[in-house]
């Protein structure tokens, strides 16, 4: 078993060929389209992209960052309750509840929110009926807030699932020790539990970040046309103008956002060592 097996390479080859043909080759294609015009290297497409879409670039970064922060907070809260609560019934109910959106497709989530968050949607109607809001105060949330709410609704179960799993496999002794010394549950969560599951949280957040950068249906269906996210702009450049150059420049900008996150993740891994 010391030499690489030729059979192994043969068995992996078809799967790798699929990735090469449907990912690596188009990726190269997008880079060429973004950085060249008539065979000459140029940055003109990026100038055009920034000129037309600077607002949307900032809007995209803002939405994804706010969503990621909210996903982190809510996931930590739910996973924390699941791990540290002393009320068994609360744990059972919460465990049953939180997972529902896990495999619900983004497009279905978008359609749900498109009706739920509208001015006359079920959310406002319920709040009015419960006396929390006056009918006059109701407003449509179908703008950046709607996108953030949809992303958070969809991604929190995923990150919580990973986080609660990691917390469940921790050594209970450290938690019990902290509790016995009189630390509150919040303090145990922040100072004892979280530092030990930071790696898992980071992986979940990085994956969510990239997923949110890739989703086309949610910004198209939940929010109006301006401002919007880069995915919608790319689709618009292609479908309305056949403008592959600018669309691919926007694509490279979204790769760059992913690269920043990947870099943060890798730096963290190097500093803490792989588990």
């Amino acid at each position, binding site marked *: 078993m010391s030499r690489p097996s030729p059979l192994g390479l043969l068995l992996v080859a078809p799967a790798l060929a699929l990735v090469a043909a*449907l990912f690596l080759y188009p990726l190269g294609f997008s880079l060429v389209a973004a950085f060249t015009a008539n065979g000459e290297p140029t940055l003109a497409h990026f100038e055009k992209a920034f000129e037309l879409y600077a607002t949307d670039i900032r809007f995209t970064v803002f939405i994804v960052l706010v969503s990621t922060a909210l996903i982190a907070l809510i996931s930590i809260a739910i996973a924390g309750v699941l791990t540290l609560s002393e009320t068994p019934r609360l744990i059972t109910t919460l465990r049953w509840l939180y997972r529902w959106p896990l495999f619900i497709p983004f497009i279905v989530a978008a359609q749900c929110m498109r009706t739920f968050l509208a001015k*006359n949607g079920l959310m406002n109607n319920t709040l009015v009926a419960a006396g929390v809001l006056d009918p006059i105060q109701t407003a449509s949330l179908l703008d950046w807030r709607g996108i953030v709410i949809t992303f958070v609704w969809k991604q929190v179960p995923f990150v919580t699932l990973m986080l609660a799993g990691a917390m469940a496999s921790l050594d209970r002794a450290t938690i019990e020790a902290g509790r016995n010394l009189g630390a509150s549950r919040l303090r145990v969560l922040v100072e004892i539990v979280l530092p030990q599951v930071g790696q898992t949280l980071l992986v979940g957040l990085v994956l969510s970040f990239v997923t949110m950068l890739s989703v086309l249906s949610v910004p198209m269906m939940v929010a109006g046309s301006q401002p919007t996210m880069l995915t919608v702009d790319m689709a618009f450049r292609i479908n309305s103008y056949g403008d592959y150059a600018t669309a691919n420049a926007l694509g490279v900008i979204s790769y760059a956002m992913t690269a920043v996150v990947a870099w943060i993740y890798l730096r963290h891994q190097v500093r803490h060592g792989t588990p």
Partner: protein
Amino acid sequence: MTLRAVLGTAAKALALALFAFALFGPLANLALWSVAERWYTPFKLPVTYGLRYWEVVFRPTGDAMSSLATSVAIAGLTVLVALLVSVPAGYALARLKLPARTLIMIAFLLPQAFPSVAIYINVARIFYQIGLAGTVAGVVLVHAAHGLVYSVWIAAAAFATVDRDLELAARNMGASGLRTFATITLPLAAPGIMASAIFVFLESLDEFTGTFFVGVPQVTTLPLLLYSASMGGNYQIASITALILLVPSVAFMMVIERFLRADVLSKVGQ
């Protein structure tokens, strides 16, 4: 019970109720729209209820039925393509010595770890040149590449959990390598591979972005029908289509632990 305990319990119950509202409210709105024959401002609930739109959707000659058939056919073919390439790859990754094994594992993650819209617009362009744009085959290829990370990683984990001693025993009794694989290794890894097949099937069924660029205008799957109905303001058709997509997703969420055993799950990605 002391007052404090009562208040604590009430606070927990209230928090749970709010959480449940946030989770199920959007789904309830979807369900309401699917049975609302007329619903307009300022009415808080549908004005008239009925199953008229369900009948429209399930009419055998309707758009929805043909989209459903297209979606299921594409998802089935995607599973076939994904399993054909990922069962051998998963076996090799779990059992054979490979150079740069980590790099190969990461290669399968890449299609999911990149902002996919920028990739799909170029896939569509390439497919247009070679005549695959707007075809079922083109959509199947895109879905299969997207699902590879599940099929390969889970297949590799499933093969890795098969006890080597059982394979060695078969070999000692004179079974060939291929026969050992077909009668021992593959059946033992089958539940994990089944789980990966369900993952890939659902991914394909729910996939919107790739189909949006590669499949149009000829290939209309359920997500594309949902999108055009919703943007056209036909919330009943959009909501019923969404419910059809919702059922397999929620059912899978309920039973996933039965298919994906903890020992397989713990080896995914290794």
